[in-house]
């Protein structure tokens, strides 16, 4: 049984292939280049290398966000159409959970995050428990400042993982002091083999119902709702 995992939800692009529960191929790039042009060639290259044809795939796992709206949609459009055409199960995994897996052996909490600009982040709180990466605080789009205040209530050490760690490193250390653990090196970049593993133990979803996890309304919609509320309050 072969499993294909796809992650284009943020700047890094990841593809992994499993045979059963054995990793057989895995590719990560972390460059600011177009996912739409590069995803399918990457899948094709890996599958050619191990001489695998698409009809041998039995499951597709995809990172469903949060992250770049466009990036998330490129991954989901590809994964959903493949799963639908091959009539095989599809599983969506939070892009934050995938990143949290880099803290698989950390004793304490794991806080993955992506920069969402203007002081905002996409983040959540996770912890490894009973052989699973468990969500402690659900994924959220929040001001980093507000989020860190919330995290001070947790007594144990917290591992911060992010491709955008530099932007917030000072703020984290200021607020969390010695309880913040910030690794350097490759730990802030998601790994598609982790995505594959995370997805292996989750329930498959209906291909039609699997939608991106944006964690944020489209700007026009948010404005519209705000305006409706104001109108209601004033009238």
């Amino acid at each position, binding site marked *: 049984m072969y499993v294909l995992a796809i992650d284009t939800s943020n700047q890094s692009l990841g593809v992994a292939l499993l045979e059963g529960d054995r990793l057989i191929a895995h590719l990560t790039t972390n460059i600011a280049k177009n996912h*739409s042009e590069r995803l399918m060639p990457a899948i094709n290259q890996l599958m050619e290398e191990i001489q695998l044809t698409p009809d041998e795939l039995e499951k597709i796992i995809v990172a469903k966000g949060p992250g770049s709206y466009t990036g998330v949609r490129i991954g989901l459009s*590809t994964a959903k*159409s493949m799963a639908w055409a091959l009539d095989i199960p599809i599983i969506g995994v939070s892009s934050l959970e995938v990143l949290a897996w880099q803290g698989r052996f950390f004793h304490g909490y794991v806080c993955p995050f992506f920069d969402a600009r203007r002081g905002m982040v996409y983040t959540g709180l996770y912890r490894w428990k009973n052989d699973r990466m468990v969500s402690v605080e659900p994924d959220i789009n929040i001001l980093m400042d507000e989020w860190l205040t919330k995290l001070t209530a947790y007594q144990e050490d917290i591992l911060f993982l992010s491709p955008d760690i530099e932007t917030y490193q000072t703020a984290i250390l200021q607020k969390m002091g010695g309880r913040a653990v910030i690794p350097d090196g490759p730990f802030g970049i998601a790994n598609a083999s982790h995505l594959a593993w995370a997805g292996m133990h989750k329930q498959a979803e209906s291909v039609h119902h699997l939608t991106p996890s944006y964690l944020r309304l489209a700007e026009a919609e948010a404005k519209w709702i705000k305006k409706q509320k104001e109108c209601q309050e004033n009238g």
Partner: protein
Amino acid sequence: MTKDVYVLGIETSCDETAAAIVKNGTEIVSNVVASQIESHKRFGGVVPEIASRHHVEQMTIVLEETFAKAKLDWEMIDAIAVTQGPGLVGALLVGVNTAKGLAFAKQKPLVGVHHIAGHIYANRLKQEFAFPLLALVVSGGHTELIVMKSHSDYEVIGETRDDAAGEAYDKVARVLDLPYPGGPQIDRLAAVGEETIDFPRAWLEADSFDFSFSGLKSSVINTIHNAKQRGEQLKKADIAASFQASVVDVLTEKTFRAAQQFNVQQVIVSGGVAANKGLRKRMQTIFQGTGISLLIPPLDLCTDNAAMIAAAGTVAFEQGKRSGWDLNAHPSLLLS
């Protein structure tokens, strides 16, 4: 006997999520369009991010319905055609990546199609082409005159220098407080109004087949504004009729002149604005008895759909055109 060719088409360049299966480039087997008009109505226009979100939610549902209606399976499909551009980049990306996912999964040839080529080939689903032909593609995003001497051979002889005709319709509709989408509303009002105001016609240089609608749009807005300041109330229907007369005059005159100059056998009118009754009527009148046959597709093939993409894609596929796995969306793709 040669084998029938079945092409699956996918179109997501704006606010319609569409898929279709077409036989031999001329016959619709199934054609499914999920319109998002209701979602964009409250914003008074298409919001790109919301369009993209709908596409990714609707795409596989639309595909499933397309295959169910066609009553045929993947074995029969010879190729997959998808709108590569022009259009909204985020919206296009959903279609392009869906098409690549399908083509890779089923190991089928992939063909990227230009949206305007699709609009032209919508007509071939009703009647075979006779070359040379002239196409007027007119919509919210485009106003172009194209001469074709053979299949997939496009020469753009005229295009808008500012707003597309459909864009002018939308803007004027907004000034008149008409609900979105404004084009059909103006068309409806124009039918009952009178041409009381002499709005300008932008003919540009004597030999030019280019268009310009921004001057007309400003003139309409100024006229309404000035009347309001004088305390006069202009009839909406009359404004609509006068505005539409200007647009239709320029479109039909230029098309007629180009048809004669390029000695074409056929004239094709397509794109969303080709659904306009005023334009359809004038085109029919002007080409009557000229020996040039006029093709205007039925309403559901004027607006965006995937059957037209499959139709254009079939010709490109048969000519040997193939797209690679690196096929990308091109928001401002040129017709070539």
